[in-house]
């Protein structure tokens, strides 16, 4: 039987090429195992073959991310592998980022199972844990003996299509992906039990640690509003009557861009709300309550603002994941920038 081919990624240091002074070497490929690849081959067993090792200097990768990724991908593709392993990187920060980045690219581009390994405080862990499975390692290479078998075991499970269990069972860093399961007891009974423990000062474990939201520094104020172009964006679900883009009433997966060129007011004959989170009666009657076109047009005429952007952007806020909302924002912000918008009023219900 033909062995399943695996490609392994390591850095200059683990390849034995050299330390910091060799961190600038460009990508290269070698047949078979190199350095820690031996431990990987042993852990994978006879049915698998580490067909090639791809190597790149940490600094080189960091400074030429796109180019290095492309070169490495081409090298990896040559071997038509069934799986890919990067690292482990332990607590080496740049190496961790490289492992996460290349593993993510391989999974996306080649569609094969990938595994890497890192210490929890490696910056690469936070950056890539949502994208790829990262086996939790200790902070130094002394842990190689223990971590490589875990990585190999997880990769083998993935390649054979077995169900991947939780972080505790498989040994990977929790990815922050919420997965449903049926618990032994119903939620209310678990809640009462948790409360009894909390009141007794006994240990308990929350089923959902509070999320952390990132921050963005505010932009400088608009200096000259009288010449500024102002745009409206809303999460209030205002769309043309009939909802041509079929935006969902809740948990939206898309947004719409709608013209208000030449209009002085949001007419209920032309616009409606499809938002599933509130009593729509008032807004159906007067969509200006969410997209304040009448007031903004007046201010434009009075010269208080330079210009009202000739379209608004809308989606439904309720239940829409931060991930989707972020994606929408990234996309339409490019358009707003390209269209010379100087300031945005974002309205939410």
């Amino acid at each position, binding site marked *: 039987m033909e062995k399943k081919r695996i490609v392994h990624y390591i850095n200059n240091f683990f390849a034995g090429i050299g330390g910091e002074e060799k961190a600038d070497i460009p990508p290269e490929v070698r047949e078979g195992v190199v350095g820690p690849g031996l431990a990987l081959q042993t852990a994978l067993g006879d049915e698998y073959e580490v067909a090639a090792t791809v190597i790149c200097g940490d600094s080189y990768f960091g400074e030429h991310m796109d180019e290095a990724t492309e070169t490495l991908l081409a090298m990896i593709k040559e071997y038509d592998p069934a799986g890919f392993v990067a690292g482990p990187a332990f607590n080496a920060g740049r190496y961790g980022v490289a492992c996460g980045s290349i593993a993510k690219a391989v999974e996306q581009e080649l569609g094969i199972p990938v595994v890497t390994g890192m210490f929890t405080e490696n910056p690469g862990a936070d950056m890539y844990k*949502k994208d790829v499975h990262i086996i939790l390692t200790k902070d130094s290479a002394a842990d190689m003996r223990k971590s490589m078998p875990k990585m190999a075991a997880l990769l083998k499970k993935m390649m054979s299509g077995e169900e*991947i269990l*939780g*972080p505790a069972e498989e040994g990977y860093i*929790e*990815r*922050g*992906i*919420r*997965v*449903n*399961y*049926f*618990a*032994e*007891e*119903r*939620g*209310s*009974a*678990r*809640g*009462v039990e*948790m*409360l*009894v423990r*909390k*009141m*007794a000062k006994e240990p*308990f474990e*929350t*089923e*959902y*640690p*509070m*999320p952390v*939201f990132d921050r963005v520094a505010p932009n400088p104020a608009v200096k000259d509003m009288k010449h500024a172009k102002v745009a409206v964006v809303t999460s209030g679900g205002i769309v043309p009557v009939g909802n041509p883009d*079929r935006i*969902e*009433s*809740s*948990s939206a*997966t898309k947004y719409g861009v709608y013209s208000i060129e030449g209009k002085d007011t949001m007419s209920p004959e032309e616009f409606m709300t*499809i938002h*599933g*989170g*509130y*009593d*729509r*009666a008032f807004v159906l009657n007067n969509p200006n309550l969410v997209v304040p076109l009448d007031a903004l047009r007046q201010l434009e005429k009075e010269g208080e603002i330079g210009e009202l952007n000739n379209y608004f952007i809308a989606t439904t*806020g*309720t*239940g829409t*994941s*931060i*991930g*989707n909302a972020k994606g929408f924002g990234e996309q339409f912000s490019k358009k707003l920038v390209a269209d010379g918008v100087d300031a945005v009023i974002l309205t939410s219900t």
Partner: protein
Amino acid sequence: MKLELGRIKIHDVQFGPETKVEKGVLYVNKEEIEKLVLEDERLIGAQVELARPGESVRIAPVKDVLEPRVKVSGGGGIFPGMISKVKEVGSGRTHALVGAAVVTCGKIVGFQEGIIDMSGPAAAYTPFSATNNVCVVIEPQEGLETHDYEAAGRMAGLKVASYVGEAGRNVEPDEVVVYETKPLQEQIAQYPDLPKVGYIHMLQSQGLLHDTYYYGVDAKQFIPTFMYPTEIMDGAIISGNCVAPCDKVTTFHHLNNPVIEDLYKRHGKDLNFIGVILTNENVFLADKERSSDMVAKLAEFMGLDGVLITEEGYGNPDTDLMMNCKKVSQKGIDVVLITDEFPGRDGKSQSLADAVNEADALVSCGQGNLIIEFPPMEKIIGTLDYVETMIGGYEGSLRPDGSIEAELQIIIASTIANGYNRLAARGY
């Protein structure tokens, strides 16, 4: 206040000339129910159909689900302020047809009504695939205003549930469970060494399709108040909302509130269940601040050591949940929250719209964005016309063969945030 709840177990439902319970079988008179529903001139059509566990049946769009109950003694009647006159309930004896349910469905009011499958993979997510359902398909008058239609549908469910519940009045229950909560001082004195626990029950109250009623009063019009736990078992709270289908606390769930049931189970053993604080989830920030202030004040005044808090809905009610959590915690009271999660279809986003540091003990009722498959069913009760615009549905959800692909949240009470189900989510 002490209530004896007589549980009459129902294992089948059939049509019959007389509405009655015999040997665990519920017989219903189709014509009488239809006539009862059509007394409301806002409705021009009513059709009764039966759905039993395991059948190849899909019910949609479901508005409410109710358990038939009847007040046997103790004063007041079932659904006070709605069906019966306003009079305090929660004492004496009540009979429940356990295993039977009344389901109202028909042309959609908003986006918020949901689906029940009686068999197949989607059935596991709703408790109503396991009940013997008397489904009432209603049809509104042409052009009926949505608020009126919602009210008519709500009343139809309450009327039919009361009518069917009457059949249990003179039936000997299979089991009688006694629930008792005494006035505050006596209750504290009964188990002086056990921690005093309360339940903060947040009622959805955001307007059309988002209202809940307590003794007939719209919850957004009351200020937080105390309730004996047994009042709810006689229908003091009824649902007038659909929120998102997965989140809906149906009238059935109010009658069978799982937190109240599970607190009673450990009452006198490792906790002293003092009672329920009812509050709302309103649409103005000032109301949210006021209500959560009052909830914390009541919790402190009752001398509670710990509370469980449940919410209904998601999005901005998460703020009410977090305000309640924070303010009650600041009174030195231990808090556990029960809620469901909406982290997006890939499960990678934050599950709640709001967060506070005090929320360190949270029970998950599952994530509602997961996409699931609904195979075609032989029989549809109601209509599938609205699947793609219902919450959880999207363009392309309904396929020509009648199968559906949609988010879990399209199923009635699938991630209900009061802990009724075993579904939960964990981090992978």
